[in-house]
């Protein structure tokens, strides 16, 4: 077997282009995924047309809220491009210079201030179905956040107005008296007046006013809390049922490394076995020179060792961008080793069943690419029946198990490393058996 191993290493060393592609392809893919997920998403370039008069405000109680505050909230969630007119905004959207334009109309202050109608902003966007969907979602989110910030300002102003009504003082509204009596003070003031008023209709009327003032003072205080809950009616409290919370960038590292491990392990093993058939050497080898089992062990071992080393180097390299827990290094090794073995065994099965290296590579790509997407489909994103099918496919191929093992090893995520590692070793045996069956035909 040593002679075969030396031969394969020699052939690999002489196939520099192939080795470069085999190593660089998954590494580049992995780094792209890593960068894409670990970096914050870029803000979309959005043209903002503010048609309101400079410094325009909305009157809420005694407070004036600048309309510019709304634009400011919106700016924080997009990359704003100041545009002077609606026509210019439409042109920029059409030319693709911005993904969308938001027009804040001149009557927004009047509409919001009226208290009876809703302010409206206009959104212009373009592009294909995918871009449209992306822009709609991004803008909806940005506008929702801007609305929330703006509504907090309005809540604050409304709350101060309620305070003035309850405690007395100045409403701050133009033309309103400066020293109003508060609802809380009315019952006390009325009590001495009622004491001086003889029993009869007038006294009863005063007593009713006093009771109303008492009731109103108590309940207007509650309305402040009601305002807060209307602004954000449901707050979110989250709890992770098991495992620990995995940061998205750490998970991205795990995905990237698993992808590299899989491509390298499967393609090397598949190509290695298929090459023996393609070079017509398989028949010569298995007629007593090397047993089929030993040949499989050599191919699995070589592919697993190469993919293990590349993936380990990658994991360490990506650690430059993302903070990883090096204290869990032994767990990394275990997860990588089990994953590498399972992928290499899958590769030998593909290679043994294919007629030549080219067919093996094509079959490997056709099998591997969907596995990545299927493994990343979250539960609940698709229908129950379809998710069950996805789960079965993900269970019988090693990508999802390798992802879980690496996630457990790197991020202490659940399910446990032990379970995922055992699953991978089981799949290694299964695919090795399939490969052995595929090798029965030597010619």
């Amino acid at each position, binding site marked *: 077997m040593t002679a075969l191993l030396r*031969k394969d290493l*020699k*052939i690999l060393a002489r196939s520099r282009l192939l080795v470069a592609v085999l190593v660089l392809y998954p590494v580049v893919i992995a780094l792209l995924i890593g960068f894409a997920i670990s970096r914050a998403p870029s803000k979309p370039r959005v043209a903002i047309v503010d048609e309101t008069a400079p410094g325009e405000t909305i009157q809420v109680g005694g407070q004036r809220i600048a309309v510019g505050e709304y634009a400011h909230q919106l700016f924080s969630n997009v990359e704003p491009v100041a545009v002077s007119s609606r026509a210019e905004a439409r042109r920029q959207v059409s030319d693709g210079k911005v993904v969308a334009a938001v027009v804040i109309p001149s009557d927004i202050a009047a509409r919001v201030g009226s208290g009876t109608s809703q302010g409206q902003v206009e959104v212009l966007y373009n592009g294909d179905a995918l871009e449209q969907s992306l822009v709609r979602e991004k803008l909806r989110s940005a506008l929702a956040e801007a609305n929330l910030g703006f509504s907090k300002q309005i809540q604050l102003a409304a709350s101060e107005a309620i305070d003035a009504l309850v405690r007395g003082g100045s409403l701050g509204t133009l033309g309103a008296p400066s020293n109003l009596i508060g609802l809380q003070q009315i019952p006390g003031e009325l009590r001495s007046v009622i004491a001086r008023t003889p029993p009869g209709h007038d006294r009863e009327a005063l007593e009713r006013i006093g009771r109303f003032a008492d009731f109103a003072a108590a309940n207007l205080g509650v309305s402040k809390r009601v305002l807060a809950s209307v602004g954000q009616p449901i707050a979110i409290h989250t709890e992770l049922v098991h495992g620990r919370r995995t940061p998205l960038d750490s998970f991205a590292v795990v995905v990237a490394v698993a992808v590299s491990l899989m491509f390298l392990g499967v393609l090397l093993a598949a190509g290695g076995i298929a090459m023996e058939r393609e*070079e017509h*050497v398989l*028949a010569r*080898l*298995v*007629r*007593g020179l090397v047993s089929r089992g030993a040949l499989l062990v050599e191919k699995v071992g070589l592919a697993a060792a190469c993919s293990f080393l590349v993936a380990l180097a990658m994991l360490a390299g990506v650690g430059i961008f993302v903070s990883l827990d090096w204290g869990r290094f032994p767990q990394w090794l275990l997860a990588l080793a089990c994953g590498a073995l399972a992928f290499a065994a899958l590769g030998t099965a593909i290679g043994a069943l294919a007629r030549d290296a080219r067919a093996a590579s094509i079959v490997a790509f056709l099998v591997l690419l969907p596995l990545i997407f299927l493994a990343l489909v979250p539960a609940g994103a698709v229908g129950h029946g379809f998710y069950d099918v996805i789960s079965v496919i993900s269970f019988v191929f090693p990508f999802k198990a390798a992802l879980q093992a690496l996630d457990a090893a790197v991020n202490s995520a659940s399910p446990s490393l032990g379970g995922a590692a055992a699953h991978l070793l089981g799949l290694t045996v299964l695919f090795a058996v399939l490969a052995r069956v595929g090798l029965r035909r030597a010619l």
Partner: protein
Amino acid sequence: MSAALRVEALGKRFGDLVALENVSFELAPGELLGIMGPNGAGKTTLLAAIAGVQAPSSGTVSLPPREVGWAPQQAALYGKLTVAENLALFARLERVPDARAAVAAMLEQTGLSERAGDQLARLSGGNRQRVNVAAGLLGDPPVLALDEPSASLDPAQRERLWTFVKGLTATGRAVVFSTHNPAEAQRHADRLLVLDAGRLRFDGTTAELLARAGAGETDLEHALVRFLEAVA
């Protein structure tokens, strides 16, 4: 003289397909035996069964696989390795006691010493076939099985190959080869087997096959076709 190889009642089935049926023959030391027959007659299957590449469904081959050198129709060698590396690899796998000496001897014998450092993929078809045969001889087997050894060679390359093979038989090694080329069989084979639909239809010299076609027949191809039509 005892036979170098004895094949008895050999049969091979692939599911319902009968590839070989009850084939028996003997091969003497130093004999050059040709196997002819139409496509699908079972020539390659017979050689593969003799070489131990395919286990027979029935019957026996007197030698274990490692005592039969085997050179398949297409060179079973690694294109990225040099001639010497290919031979050294198979010598080690054959557990030849002195692999280095065996490789040197085989390079000398095949006249490829000067090409020892060339990658196999860069050799001509003829030279590749010589290395292919040489790889089959590394274990110094008493019998060599060659599957259409000259199929892809030009006349000059064929000539060199047959000179080399005849050199082997001159030292007592028995060689059995398959061919589609009647002229080649007529010129080189000491004896001829004719297979058809997995059955052995003829075992004798080329002169005997010509005689079966009628007096004065000298064209082996013509004689073979008439013979196969007669037995069909």
